[in-house]
């Protein structure tokens, strides 16, 4: 994305959070990360760069909360400066 004089604007910083159990399994116990992204695709790509293979886990195995709103993991889901992106286990249907 470019600003009004054509200069490339960095994507905004967002905060990515995992549950303790998830972080123990996939991120060496680290629960929180700051990444730059405009949408869920960007978040997943950044996390996959940090932990190769994690992107597929996030896509397949989680729901995500963006500032408290629960969502399916969809690439086009926008994220905003300072957003809290919380990945959590998928729901069971009843």
């Amino acid at each position, binding site marked *: 994305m470019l600003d009004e004089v054509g200069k490339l604007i960095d994507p905004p910083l967002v905060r990515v*959070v995992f*549950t*303790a*159990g998830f972080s*123990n399994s996939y991120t060496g116990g680290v629960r929180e990360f700051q990444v730059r992204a405009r949408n869920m695709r960007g978040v997943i790509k950044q996390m996959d760069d940090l932990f190769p293979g994690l992107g597929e886990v996030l896509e*397949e*195995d*989680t729901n*995500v*909360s963006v*500032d*408290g*709103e*629960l*969502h*399916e993991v*969809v690439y086009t*889901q926008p994220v905003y400066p300072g957003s*809290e992106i*919380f990945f*959590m*286990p*998928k*729901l*069971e*249907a*009843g």
Partner: protein
Amino acid sequence: MLTKTKFVAEDLKVVGTRPIRPDGVPKVTGMAQYGADYSLPGMLWAKILRSPHAHARIRSIDVSRALELPGVKAIVTKDDFPEQSFDYIGPDRVAVNYWHMTRNVMAREKVLYEGHAVAAVAATTQSIAEQALALIQVDYEVLPHVIDVDDAMRPDAPLLFEDMITRGMTPPPTKPSNISRWAEFKTGDVDAAFAKADAVVELSFKTSPVHQGYIEPHACLARFGADGQCEIWSSSQGHFFVRAYTAKLLGMNLGDLVVHPAEIGGGFGGKTVVYVEPVAAALSRKTGRPVKVAMTREDVTRATGPTSGSSMTVKVGATKDGKIVAADAVFKLQAGAFPGSPVLNACMCSFSPYEIENVRTVGYDVVSNRPKAAAYRAPGSPIAAFAVESVLDKLAQEIGMDPVQFRLKNAVKAGSPTFWGPKHAHDGYAETLQALMAHPEYQKPLGKNQGRGVASGFWFNGGGESTATIHINEDGTVMLATGSMDVGGSRASMAMMAAETLGVPYETVRSTVADTASIGYNHVTGGSRVTYATGMAVIEACQQIIKDLCHRAALTWDVKDEDVIWENGHAKPASPEVGSFEPLSLKAIAAKRAVTGGPIVTESAVNAGGMAPGFASQFIDVEVDPETGAVKVLRAVCAQDVGKAIHPSYCEGQIHGGVVQGIGWALNEEYVYDKQGRLENPGFLDYRIPVASDLPMIEALMVEVPNPNHPYGVKGVGEANIIPVMAAIANAIERATGKRLTQLPMSPPRVLEALDA
């Protein structure tokens, strides 16, 4: 992309009304086609041989004598199903393990519960198939069994799987056990926080597993062609998962299997599993003829998944002014014969209605010699709520607060943290409590041996993948199809949202459920997701077709597309400057479909997010007979945040249904086993679900706090209603008798025992 609209209740013409349900007449006249109602020429009947033992090793199966019986066409056993690799596929709470699934459909090395399928016969008549079952020789080595969850966790318990190491523990245990999974959620410093509490209550609880009690037993018809193409007609909560599981268990491509949705006679979560479909398809493949399987009620109770039984301990501390400062809970849930109880949901839902800084929940998923647990209405949450809401009631009494006020003081709202992760994004809970307090009966005194109990519940509600298609017929009426099985009125609610969006009468929209070959993927009808997610697909399809209709009107008027608007079911000029044109109705535009581009049709698919959770709060009045221990429910007042009721009668029906099931769970329903682990009450005469004469006036209070993420404010309605019931009744009994019951069901003998203690 869906255009989200601001929720404007006063502009709605169809949403919020109560039109006649489209499935009503076929159902009451006997015309509806359920799973067992389908037949084909040359059809065979299948019967399934089931284990008489709760736990046994299968040494051998000899089918030779059965095959010699005239009329028997084929028999299948484990050898007719390919072995599956041992992997937990998908996320924890919904992980699928096909190694387990194929063994649940047809036992391999061992039988793990009475009723476990061992072989299946296809024959020309049901009677011959029954006779053939008796001729199959199975050599069993009977093994010790275990049913109760606490017994199954003992170090010396018989092991269902000799190599099962508990998942989730760090470091992993060194010895195998029946504990499949361990999980913990925590926030804050729980132990330190209890020291600051003025009152602490700790209680232990047990609940019996209970069946969903759907009236229609599992049934299906399968036809496997010589070309390898297979069709199945079955009732389920999602024909796309039937296709996926059956294809996987038979080693087929998805494209070679078409599943047709039959009408469904109840599911409540229990029909999100395959039992008979792979068996019927395997027999059809072997015989080349259509094969029908229909379970009996006894088969259903013995061999299909109830929800878990449990053993729980909950401890909560609060200050004198009613602030909860710490909560600690252990939930041990019975998974049945294979791993997969809803214990993670129990852990997460338990304290979710409350803003508490220090919380710890620990869960155990435990296998035992019972049918594998299946989903049941808000899986896991009602079990946890029975314990949590019972403890909260006692705590409210100890600090001298009204139970509703106590809950209201600690209620979550938008922005409140959850103990398992993200913040709550929606209001709705406090509003249900306020609705109870405003009810004229809430403060009314009760008589002798009567008590009033309060409880609440939380459920996530779901979103996810759905598809909808719309076709404008030649006369301007509307064909609407989705791939979501209609278990709770979705054909009506989809038609209503389509009519509202298109601006046409509800009666002009024909709403159907399409088979797996005729529409894109739809996730199961469960998790209270369909009105929300499939509704979004429908609305988006309507918005697309409105765009197309405006385009066709523009072509007709020789104006630009943007000069045409859609209003009250008609294309109109956007302004007087566009020209003077008579509005074009759907019928008028449909009449010119050929010259404006051909059939008017669209399909929309979504992966819906932004769903809002469901909250329910209830007060229930009971009267306890001190001589018999019988509990009569006098009144149930049930407030639930429904977002926006699309069809209020259906929402009320969901609330009524959930409360009825909760009353059965609370007072009567349980599995009774003999010493050999054999079920003694498999029929409805002895497994006693509530009947009309058991039930009180159930008053549904629909609280509408719209979800801003849905064009009509929808929130899921199907599940939150069952969650509070058991605790509300236990709390009412305690207030009527002074006795706290901590075990379900609270049947007359158990109540009498408490009264006499």
